[in-house]
């Protein structure tokens, strides 16, 4: 970003124009925001088509409700809140295990590794598969917090505003999510965590 201040000014102008019904301005706003909205939706739903559905619904809702936006507040917070709610709604509509997926065929090979083989275990595709499988065991809000904070890099205070909860609740959701994911990784991908990092009770040192 060459000039963040200018971009923010542009964004504010785009929002103002879009609120007045300027479709070109709104389309430009969509272009600016679409990637992150789609990414968030994907990491929650585990499906690019679902992510497209969610994002489309989010932007259409945004177009209809732009006049409700308070310019005194961060636009992104509002946008990601709508995104989070839409993605969580979709996740809930599928039930708690809606996205539980079988282990991949090469999973057995990973299980047999006693040493860390980061190259094979942590390929991008394998990591994505692992997340889709293990995150299915998270409550929707835990998953959303993990996605926003750990994957999208949103700060805790902002996640709290997006989720409309206290920061302590965000930290609690994150802690729970990490525990579940960590336990799943240790169980399904034992070669990922060096033996030296495990305690005798099966957990790890910090």
């Amino acid at each position, binding site marked *: 970003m060459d000039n963040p201040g200018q971009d923010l000014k542009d964004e504010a102008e785009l929002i103002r124009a879009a609120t007045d019904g300027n*479709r070109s301005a*709104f*389309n430009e706003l*969509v*272009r600016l925001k*679409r*990637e992150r909205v*789609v*990414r968030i939706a*994907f*990491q929650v739903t585990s499906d*690019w*088509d679902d*992510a*497209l*559905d969610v*994002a*489309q*619904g989010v*932007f*259409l809702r945004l*177009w209809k409700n732009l006049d409700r936006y308070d310019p005194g507040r961060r636009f992104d917070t509002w946008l990601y809140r709508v995104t989070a709610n839409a993605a969580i709604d979709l996740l809930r509509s599928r039930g708690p295990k809606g996205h539980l997926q079988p282990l991949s065929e090469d999973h057995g090979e990973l299980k047999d590794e006693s040493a*860390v083989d*980061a*190259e094979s275990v*942590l390929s*991008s595709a394998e*990591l*994505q598969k692992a*997340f889709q499988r293990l995150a299915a065991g998270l409550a929707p809000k835990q998953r959303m917090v*993990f996605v926003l*904070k*750990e*994957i*999208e*890099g*949103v*700060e*805790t205070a902002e996640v709290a505003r997006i989720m409309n909860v206290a920061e302590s609740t965000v930290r609690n959701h994150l802690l729970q*999510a*990490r525990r579940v*994911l*960590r336990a799943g*990784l*240790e169980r399904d*991908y034992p070669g*990922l*965590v*060096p033996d*030296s*990092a495990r305690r005798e009770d099966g957990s*790890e040192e*910090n």
Partner: protein
Amino acid sequence: MHEHPELRLLLADYTASPRREELLRHLQGCAACRADVAAEDPSRLFALLALEAVPEGLLDRLSDNVATAIAEPGTVPARRSFRMRWASIAASLLLAGAFSTYLLDRDGKQTEPASAPVAFVVQERKAEQAFTLISSRETAEWIDLSVGGERVVMIFDEELDL
């Protein structure tokens, strides 16, 4: 333990650093750092998913769909063409089944309906591929939707293109 200065930043807080993407790129390319992060808390490796590329064309499709929808109020573009088409087919079949089916007994003997069935037209080709066309009479078409011992037949008032 392997020590890269970047690693401490990563473990301290991925989100606080303005160099987040740079750090993640380092983590992606540095097996030793990945192993160290895995030893500390393997779930933190999922931060690498931030580098995952969105499928080509998906973002443009999103923009196009939204632009179309807001340019033509009341027109919501098909959000998932494949899924929506099947949903509409299923709904059509359900409605048609509710209004125009009658049961055949288990030995296949036909029970005539008390009155002429209401007929619906299904024109999607793929829907019919799962069913068996058992006979036709004049312009009507019959489709067998039987499951187990129950036989259900649907009638359509146009010839189906199977």
